[in-house]
């Protein structure tokens, strides 16, 4: 210590030691900074948690309550359930897609466009994947039941499906040329809906003939 305070007399050094010893171990800031920090963190979260959990002025839980909470385990809230459900759905979709990948028909997006347009088109067409998957599933089921249909009925179904598929190809081509067009998107969705509905009807007919 003397090395650090070479200019102090022994008496001054003793008084300094006493003063230091009298200081508190920690000093609280003049105002609580944590609420502001928490607020900024919360503002950037994707899933907002209930505000009361982190409310700066909320009364602190009493020790007994804290113990009770600890025994309950993690608190189940709607946002947490929603987040868990979203993860489950995404995982399920990914798994289903992986399992059905070979059956999905890929449409060719022909027109040339800039990279931004290509990106938009890719995003646009991604939303039709669920239609494609449903249609592929229904088509596979129909193929299995096709033997139960008479040739004339099969011809009617095939003719109608060709009409629908041609319409889908035309509408998708138009959407590829104008990916931002909500109207074009509506046309594509409309024909897809009709395809899925038609395949369901065709399956109903085939199932009936198989009974």
């Amino acid at each position, binding site marked *: 210590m003397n090395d650090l305070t070479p200019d102090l007399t022994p008496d001054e050094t003793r008084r300094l030691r006493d003063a230091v010893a009298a200081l508190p171990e920690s000093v609280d800031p003049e105002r609580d900074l944590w609420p502001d920090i928490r607020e900024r963190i919360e503002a950037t979260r994707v899933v907002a948690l209930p505000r009361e959990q982190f409310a700066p002025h909320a009364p602190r839980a009493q020790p007994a309550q804290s113990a009770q909470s600890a025994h309950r385990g993690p608190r189940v809230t709607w946002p947490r359930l929603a987040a868990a459900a979203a993860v489950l759905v995404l995982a399920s979709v990914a798994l289903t897609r992986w399992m059905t990948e070979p059956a999905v028909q890929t449409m060719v997006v022909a027109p040339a466009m800039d990279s931004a347009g290509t990106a938009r088109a890719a995003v646009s067409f991604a939303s039709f994947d669920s239609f494609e998957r449903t249609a592929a599933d229904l088509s596979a089921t129909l193929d299995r039941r096709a033997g139960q249909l*008479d040739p*004339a*009925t099969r011809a*009617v*179904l095939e*003719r*109608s499906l060709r*009409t*629908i598929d041609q*319409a889908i190809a*035309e*509408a998708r081509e*138009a959407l590829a040329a*104008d990916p931002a*067009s*909500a*109207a*074009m998107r*509506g*046309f594509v969705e*409309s*024909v897809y809906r*009709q395809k899925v*509905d*038609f395949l369901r*009807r*065709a399956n*109903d*007919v085939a199932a*009936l*003939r198989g009974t």
Partner: protein
Amino acid sequence: MRTLLTGLLGAALALSSAGAQQPVDRRFALSATGFVKMYNFTGSIRVVGWDKDSVVVAGTMARGMRFFGGGSREAVKLGVEGEGSGADATADLVVHVPATANVWVRGAATTITVEGLIGSVDIGSVAGAVRITGAPRELFAETMDGTLEIVGSPGVLRAKTATGALRWRGGGAEATLTSVSGEVTTDGGSLGRARVETVSGNVLLLGALRPDASVTVESHSGSVTLRVPRDVPMRLTADVVSISGVGIAGKATAPAGRRSDPRLLDYNKPKPGGRAAEVSVRSFKGGMELRQ
């Protein structure tokens, strides 16, 4: 001599044909609001509503076919099964049911006719024509390749074809009409809330509109013809390739709106505080014609 031989030959053929058929004559008790399920995959079936609490089946079916039927006072199931033999291997049935019963009929190469039912009716054929007359509370009717004709004003209507034409003479509060390549025509009544969808089939809306109507037509390549009401205010939103008859009297052809900017046309100005019937027409490749 030749006349005599021809007559004998005709008689022999008639006897032979009659011999290839067997009669059907069955009866079932059914409550007025009971359920009836019927199957006949080839031939015809005519369903007639009456004011008795019973089901009566009459007709003929080919040799080799078998009639089945049974159930309770609340539900009866009946039909014809088996392929039969010969070129005329069909079954032709006339079925009387309580008019308020809930009726379900399925056929394949079957012509189906329904008359005088006011309950819930669900009809489906594949290649046969379907004709329904009357005003069922709910009507679901479908045929793939045959013509579907509805004469009357059901409470709720869902009608579908694939290649067959769909014709509706009547009106109603709620209707959905769908076809792939068949032409869809409505006439003879007032439409309320209606939706018409085709892929390549043309659409002709020639009937009237209720003042509170909300009608949507969507087609990929079908053309759309719309009769503009003379007195009911109507706002038309058209997203089509071309429109003719916009001015009605002059039949002038006007350019359609851009895809991103559908054309808005108002007819018959509504009274203050009143509203206009709303019609929305979208066809990717088809044009539109307005008539009066």
